[in-house]
């Protein structure tokens, strides 16, 4: 089973507009290799024959709330950690349409 390789990693970087250095790439690949091995050992150790697929990993269902407006935060609080803001907007590098 193959979970990650350098092609997939390159594509993911493109999709997420990230640029990893060569050494970061090596670290990520090594990490996934280790994870893959562990998953591999799990799937060979546990018999999942006849086990129904789960809808969700948590044994909790239907957590819903009523349709009521509550305001808990100010704009200033939310933008306190933003690198750039302008007139109450978050400011980001110009996008080319």
């Amino acid at each position, binding site marked *: 089973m193959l979970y990650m390789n350098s092609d997939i990693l390159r594509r993911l970087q493109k*999709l997420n507009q990230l640029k990893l250095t060569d050494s970061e790439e090596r670290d990520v690949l090594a990490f996934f290799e280790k994870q893959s091995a562990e998953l591999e050992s799990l799937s060979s150790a546990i018999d999942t024959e006849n086990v129904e697929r789960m809808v969700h990993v948590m044994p909790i269902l239907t957590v819903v709330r009523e349709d009521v407006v509550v305001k808990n935060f100010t704009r200033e609080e939310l933008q306190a950690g933003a690198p750039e803001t302008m007139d109450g907007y978050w400011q980001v590098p110009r996008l080319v349409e």
Partner: protein
Amino acid sequence: MAKYETVIGLEVHIELATNSKIFCSCSAKFGGEQNDHVCPACCGMPGMLPVVNKRVVDLGMTAGMMLNCDINRVTTFDKKSYYYPDLPAAYQTTQWFAPVAVNGKVRIETSKGEKFIRIKQIHMEEDAGKLVHDDWTDTTLVDFNRTSVPLIEIVSQPDLNSAEEVVAYLEQLRSLLRFAKVSECRMEQGSMRCDVNLSVRPEGSDKLGVRTEMKNMNSISAIERAIAYETARHIDAIENGTEELVQETRRWDDIKGMSFAMRNKETAGDYRYFPDPNVMPVCIDDEWFERIKKSLPELPSVKKDRYIDELGLSEYDADILTQSRALCDCFEEAYAVSGLVKESANWIISNCMNVLNRKQLTADMLNIDGKALGKLILLVADGKVGHANAKKILEAMFDEDIDPEAYANENGYIVSNDTGKIEGVIRAVVAADPKSVADYKGGKEKALMALFGKCMKELKGNCDPQVLRELLIKIINE
């Protein structure tokens, strides 16, 4: 020349009429100062847990039932990943594996007759934020007020074959969803938006041609123009090899009247859907399901037939009333109180519509109390309030909640049965206008109307016209 068939499927996004957002308690109201309706959850800050707004599920189910869908009794949310600044978490929470409603159908009518358009699915999801380009600083400014505002997306099967069918389908969706109060479906305000998937194939072929998608269309006439343009472009490419058709997303420029390929093709469409572990699956039990089922309104087409067959309204009147849920509700309440079918219909179709037009409001925005209208209709029918004054009372009902009878009393609009007072007024008017009296006696009917009008004015309209007319003739002939 070979004949071609256009094959169109629509993805229609509809903003739901809720108070708060889909996964947090921020206001979902349109507008507001930039980034005023935001919190850590809808800003995509790490560590926040989304919690589903129950009303969104109610409305998703309602839409599903209105469009004859099967409701998935366990419905789940998934992450759709794409990187863009209007999406702070870099993924949209939507439904992919178990959407709330599937396998529906919508009946449309066109010049070619009746047709059913199959609905593939309806899913619930969050809207994205808004981007503003600032030329001065050459940067992009981000407003997250719209982020996480609840939407449903209605995905049709590729069953539509012309612009006419697309328009009929969109109008039918709008009518059904407005009736069920799922959304106001206003394309001009962006509460209804449409992606058009289009391909062209030789008539009779069962193989679909290359499909292109035009996103975020927000007016019916633009959609009609875009379909005509894309169809011609596809046929030209097939027949004359003017260009190679590729599956892609295109932007419709309504001013230029052309569609353009959007850039960034390479990364488009790879959304890597996977179940969102932060949002718990929603299980719709029988009680919940039945509650929504019971809340569904009578369909407009069924209502129209009932108005004609059971209540005896004309097709014309029934047509006008059933164009809007607000008109139907008001009519039914007014009729229930007054017991007068024709009068109830007439008051809404002429008087209420006049006031709406004058105030530049649409029929959907009629929000007067139907029961009060029923009482007003009775006051007029019983001869207690004259027509002119009744219209003034109606006008006041648009501005405030009033009891028509109490309001009529306060403003002196109650018809007087005091014949002594009426006689006094008539005698004064007659004495002051001997010429009109002489004209009438000389055979001029119009002169009587002039005298009648003067008396009515003196009495401020509070007089039974029949009584006034009889007394006036009696006094002139004395």
